[in-house]
């Protein structure tokens, strides 16, 4: 993790050794950034799903999918899926993926059909584009917050 490296670098530079108290502090920094890490990871996952929906706007029988961000974030923070079960990891490319699973334990669900089409496609481009723009804005917001947090931490690590 970047924070650990940064903290260790700053500490080694002055004291040449790291005490247990300092390690505990670094772990707290790590925990502190966990929320941003999970939020940013989920935003990236959602961006992939929405890009897939837009790419397949003309594919017959394609069903648009999305994640419920709130419950997916709660799942990612607890290390469990939305259903309270531990997540299964695909460790080999040959492992089969289910139609609805994604990384971070987020469950991709099929979007409710707004207006049916003859070819069985359920993508509504207006909804998908709006969701994509919203997702980009929100991930930019998370990045701004995490940058602010880094600035705070850097300030706290400085010697007077």
């Amino acid at each position, binding site marked *: 993790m*970047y924070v650990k490296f*940064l903290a260790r670098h700053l500490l080694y530079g002055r004291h040449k050794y790291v005490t247990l108290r300092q390690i505990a502090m670094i772990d707290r920094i790590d925990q502190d950034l966990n929320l941003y890490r999970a939020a*940013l990871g989920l*935003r*990236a*996952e959602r*961006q*992939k*799903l929405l*890009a*897939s929906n*837009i*790419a*397949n*706007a*003309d*594919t*017959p029988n*394609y069903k648009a999918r999305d994640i419920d961000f709130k419950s997916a974030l709660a799942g990612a923070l607890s290390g469990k899926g939305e259903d309270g079960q531990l997540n299964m990891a695909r460790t080999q490319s040959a492992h089969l*993926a289910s139609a609805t699973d*994604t*990384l971070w334990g987020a469950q991709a669900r099929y979007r409710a059909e707004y207006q049916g089409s003859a070819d069985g496609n359920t993508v509504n*481009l207006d909804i998908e*584009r709006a969701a*994509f*723009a919203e997702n*980009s804005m929100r*991930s*930019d917001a998370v*990045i701004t917050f*995490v*940058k602010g947090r*880094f600035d705070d931490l850097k300030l706290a690590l400085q010697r007077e």
Partner: protein
Amino acid sequence: MSFAVFGIAGSALTAQSARLNAVASNLANADSIAGPDGQPYRAKQVVFKATAVEGGGLGVRVTQVVNSAAPLRMQYDPSNPAADEKGYVAMPNVNVVEEMVNMLSASRAYQINAEVMNAAKASLQKALSIGQ
């Protein structure tokens, strides 16, 4: 903020430009009485299929190009050397109105996917500035 988005949107750009190529071919040959095989030209349609891309997500791929099953347009023109004994000439089954709609749809879809790529690029650049 994931590089897979470029794969997803890129596959859509490729697929939509293949569709645009098919439209161009159909419109160019809307009146071609004889194709390379001596038979009247038949409208080409692309078949899209959702395909997994590296890094997760579903891209799109053209799996095959099929000939339209619509009947050939029979045009009465007895003076034409290609006319049959009743005086009809078999013309391509290209529906020009349908092709124009197809062209607009393909070009809009191409634009949207290019925009998706740009938005993903902007997000990634923003993410790269973390910690600076």
